[in-house]
């Protein structure tokens, strides 16, 4: 009895050993295969174009056998999350689609791989891309042939409006009676304000609507990305074009003061209540719920809005950021794609960039909902007809202007967020005081960075 039990248990032990050996052997046998399966992690913001990129990336995996993994973070924490990652020399991202203003810091701190040699070797020419995107997303120092990214997602601030409301005869006649002109998408900010005032509080289809949606967000970059669209066009400049970093008299010029006052007036007269801390998503919600007549937002969202069943299609129209009394610019958005210097898969990451730069891939990128910066795509004769917002996009990309892209951009941005929000939303002080304080803040930041700031 005891013997048979012993025999039984030794059989079990033998079986278990054989199973263990089998599992170990098969694991060893499959190891080379596992090592061969390559993977790249691409970091970006979580928004509509990111979904298009995932779709596009399937072709790359098919061609190269390299699996693509994505790390998408909401816009409000995008900068915090990824700048922290880059600062700490983390290995989470192999490729990163970083914001345009990061380029200075990324280059100076060696967070990104410099791409000049790679571009030369693969015959990728920056002349093939829209000039504003090359300067904005790739170059550091600006306007020098030092490239740290490939323009990946061209973007700018644009406007959407309720075409269906604008075309209603009763609204048209009421507007003409009041302002003596036809109701049409505004060409200037004065016109935009009139239209916004006209719609503010009006009842349409039994619902109270509001004039305009503009950016007011405090925490990240929202209100700055909104107010600059007005400031540029009223005569604001970051510094003296002849004396870099001389901000006195440019940032706080009388024209810039008028621009800031105008943004506050627009916020006070013509926006929906409660939008005191609102950025991209709040704008989309306000427009999609039929609350506003006109919406300021990034072109990146326009394909999604055009497809919206409630406000898209024939109901939506698009227009370029209106001109001001002094100039006509719009805020540059968008990003370039870079290889992270601490990545263990730099060669694969460069292979992705090589693949992404191909005209056929760029064409598909545009078709899927991304915005290509390749001239071959955007300068094609049929491009303006390829989407209802394509002509406005092309026009906008020719008049873009960007925020500082210095290594200290985060400090510069947060200072502006504070000063502008304090004045526009919290009604604190005057526009002149806000901009004077901004000059003081920025002078201090550049001083810490070791830049010489001329006061006059």
């Amino acid at each position, binding site marked *: 009895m005891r013997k048979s039990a012993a025999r039984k248990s030794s059989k079990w032990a033998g079986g278990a050993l054989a199973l263990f050996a089998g599992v170990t052997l098969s694991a060893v046998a499959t190891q080379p295969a596992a090592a061969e399966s390559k993977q790249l992690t691409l970091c970006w913001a979580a928004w509509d174009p990111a979904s298009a990129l995932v779709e596009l990336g399937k072709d790359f995996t098919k061609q190269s056998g390299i699996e693509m993994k994505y790390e998408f973070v909401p816009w409000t924490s995008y*900068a*915090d999350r990824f*700048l*922290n990652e880059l*600062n700490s020399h983390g290995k989470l991202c192999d490729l990163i689609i970083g914001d345009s203003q990061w380029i200075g*810091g990324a280059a*100076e*701190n*060696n967070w990104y791989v410099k791409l000049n040699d790679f571009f030369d070797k693969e015959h990728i020419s920056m002349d093939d891309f829209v000039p504003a995107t090359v300067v904005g997303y790739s170059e550091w120092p600006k306007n020098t042939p030092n490239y740290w990214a490939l323009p990946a997602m061209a973007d700018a601030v644009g406007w959407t409006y309720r075409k269906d409301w604008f075309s209603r005869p009763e609204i048209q006649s009421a507007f003409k009676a009041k302002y003596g002109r036809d109701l049409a998408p505004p060409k200037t900010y004065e016109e935009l304000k009139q239209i916004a005032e006209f719609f503010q509080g009006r009842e349409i289809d039994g619902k109270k609507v509001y004039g305009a949606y503009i950016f007011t*967000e*405090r*925490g990240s970059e929202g209100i700055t990305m909104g107010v600059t669209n007005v400031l540029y066009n009223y005569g604001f400049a970051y510094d003296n074009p002849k004396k870099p970093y001389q901000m006195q008299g440019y940032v706080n010029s009388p024209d810039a003061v008028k621009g800031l006052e105008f943004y506050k007036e627009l916020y006070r007269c013509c926006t*929906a*209540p*409660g*939008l*005191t*801390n609102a950025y991209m998503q709040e704008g989309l919600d306000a427009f999609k719920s039929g*609350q506003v007549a006109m919406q300021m937002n990034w072109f990146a969202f326009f394909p999604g809005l055009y497809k919206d069943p409630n406000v898209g299609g024939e109901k939506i129209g698009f227009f370029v950021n209106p001109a001001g009394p002094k100039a006509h610019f719009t805020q540059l958005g968008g990003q370039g794609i870079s290889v992270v210097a601490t990545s263990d898969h730099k060669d694969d990451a460069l292979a992705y960039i090589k693949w992404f730069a191909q005209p056929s891939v760029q064409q598909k990128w545009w078709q899927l909902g991304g915005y290509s910066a390749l001239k071959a795509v955007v300068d094609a004769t049929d491009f303006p007809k390829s989407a209802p917002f394509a002509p406005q996009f092309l026009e906008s990309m020719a008049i873009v202007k960007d925020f500082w892209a210095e*290594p*200290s*951009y*985060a*400090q510069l941005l*947060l200072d502006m967020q*504070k000063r502008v*929000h*304090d*004045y526009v*939303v*919290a*009604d*604190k002080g005057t526009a002149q005081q806000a901009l004077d304080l901004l000059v003081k803040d920025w002078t201090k930041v550049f001083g*810490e*960075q*070791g830049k010489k700031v001329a006061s006059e």
Partner: protein
Amino acid sequence: MTTIIHPENAAIEGIGEPCKRRAGVAGKTWRARGLSDRAIAWLFVAPTIALLLAINIFPLIWMIRLSFTSLNLSMSYLPLRFVGLDNFQDILTDEDVWARLQTTAQFVICSVALQVVVGFGLALLINRQFRSHSFWTTIILLPMMLSPAVVGNFWTLLFQPQIGPFNYLVSLFTGLPPSSFSMTGEVALAPWTIVLVDTWMWAPYVMLICLAGLRSIPDYIYEAAEVDRASSWRQFWSITLPMTVPFLMLAVLFRAIENFKMFDMVNLLTSGGPGSTTELVSITLKRAAFEKWRTGYSSALAIILFVTVFGAANIYVKALKRVKQR
């Protein structure tokens, strides 16, 4: 098995001299094995001390060191400069920092005062026996069990001017149109909004501490007061309140320290806005450290805040001790 009898306990044990010898033998046995009592004690304490040093003391010393430097992580290519007390001077002469400290002090005073009043009131109610007493206690305690992130998002929705129920409730009582005011977006209302939400969340905590105080008052004191025909009002002023004061002071201490550090809930509700109206000093610190990447400056600010809270708490604890002695 070796029994160790400590020499001091020898008399209690009633064993005397032979025991001391035995203890000596035992000690020798341990030493022979290479571990004394002291060594074993250290062995047990060492991991905790190592952990404390690694995650608490070392970063603190490192932070003190950084506070005297110009380190900015977004410009780490710049040489690290020793700037002496410049960061401290910058902070202490910065009007904005003083304004943020003022905002924080106002928030702490208003919210703690309101929490003490509401919490003590709730404790007086819950201290009585009534039907469904446990059910109501649980309901009252619910807010403090929620995460501040959940509370922040949840109240943001409640305060939404166009669809939020809070504005509709106010309009029911006042007749004001619901969308005519914004609790989180108006300079006059936003500071009260954060006080209101913080009180909603933490008054139950004060209630718990007060309840412990109320239940610690012996019944015979009230019985003696009743024999002396003291009114309920007199009993409250002469017995209940004085005997719960140490508990109330403790609640004030805990809540004041917590509110001085308040970040998450306010950040989610208002992001410090409108403008800088509700920007507490903890939000300023977070922005300086992790958005502007001014590591040297933010280290100095963190030290100033630490010293402020530590100093104030120490003075308060001394006052608390004096009250207890009375």
